[in-house]
């Protein structure tokens, strides 16, 4: 289901029509068979795309770059969402 949503979004973006899922998170629950849409906002404190980005290259991903390859040092500015780990995980 999710893979098909991704394929559809890709086709829309490549051809250039429709409303892409930018700033919207579509969630899918197969058991209840529910789709929900959550609005997403840009985080002005985002270390990558925020107002004062700290990530300007991929060095953060290099081995030995402070333990966790993808984590950004905690500066106390993390949005509340930081505490809620993503519910969805492996594509597998």
């Amino acid at each position, binding site marked *: 289901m999710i*893979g098909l949503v991704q*394929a559809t979004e890709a*086709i829309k973006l490549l051809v*250039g029509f429709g409303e*892409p899922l930018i700033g919207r998170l579509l969630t899918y629950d*197969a058991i209840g068979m529910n789709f929900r849409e959550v609005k997403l906002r840009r985080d002005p404190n985002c270390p990558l795309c925020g107002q004062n980005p700290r990530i300007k290259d991929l060095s953060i991903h290099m081995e030995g770059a402070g333990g966790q390859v*993808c984590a950004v040092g905690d500066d106390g500015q993390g949005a509340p969402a930081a505490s809620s*780990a993503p519910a969805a995980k*492996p*594509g597998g």
Partner: protein
Amino acid sequence: MKTLREMLAEARRVVPEQGPAELKAQLDRGEALVLIDVRDPDEYRDGYIDPAVNISRGFLEFRVASAAADPNVPIVLYCQTGLRSVLAAKALKELGFTNVTNLAGGYQRWVQSGLPIAKDSPLNTDQIQRYSRHFLLGPIGEKGQRKLLGSKVLLIGAGGLGSPTAYYLAAAGVGTLGIMDGDRVDITNLQRQILHKTSDIGRPKVESATETIRALNPDVTVVPYPVRLTVDNVEEILKDYDLVIDGSDNFETRYLVNDACYLQGKTNVHGSIFQFEGMATVFAPDRGPCYRCLYPTPPPPGLVPS
């Protein structure tokens, strides 16, 4: 019974006409107008007036709304000599389109006036048939199909998410599909990873994926990457693609895809699933949030099952 001449005269009384020079000037000024070529698709393929869309006379009333949603938008119709299109324009007026003009002398007079024409790279006969159902969809059409055939998409992961995505993109005629996955096919994959078959067990996933896609659509060039995405290979690989689709199964890769896509200005179509739940969104640099806006930090190890 009316003669053809009477019908044309009647249409000309209600449909204003304009000449090629006048249309050219309007187009050059960038005026908002919808230009429709009402000839048959094979005539359009031989050359048309840019940026005309092709809706042949027989389908005009059925499909005009896909080109002109607003009935008050200025519409200019043309055919080869201006006869079919004047009748077509009258029909559109009767449908309620208020601002319809006919190009006097049609495409022929446009060409004779020495004005520029456009001609799309030809699709072969098989492609015209294969994608004919796309041509019926207004927003895609032949132009959209050409864009798809010229597009390059990188799929990260040929597993549960990447399998259906690759299948549908290949079927739709996305011209180049890069497929990246460092894993081999395992029997436990087969209940959901539909790119791979029982006989593929033990083979690199990108190999079986390549075979499956080539068998489905020979128009698609598959570029297999039998490796895991790393900080050392990501920039070099990404730069060749128009769009990235993240179907990976781990947070390290997702952050890496996110960061590399943002830094290169590439749109990332993100998806993830866990058991019966899934989510999808599009991260378009500076047009919306990125993965780090959504998840500033990865979950602590052990919180999420692997």
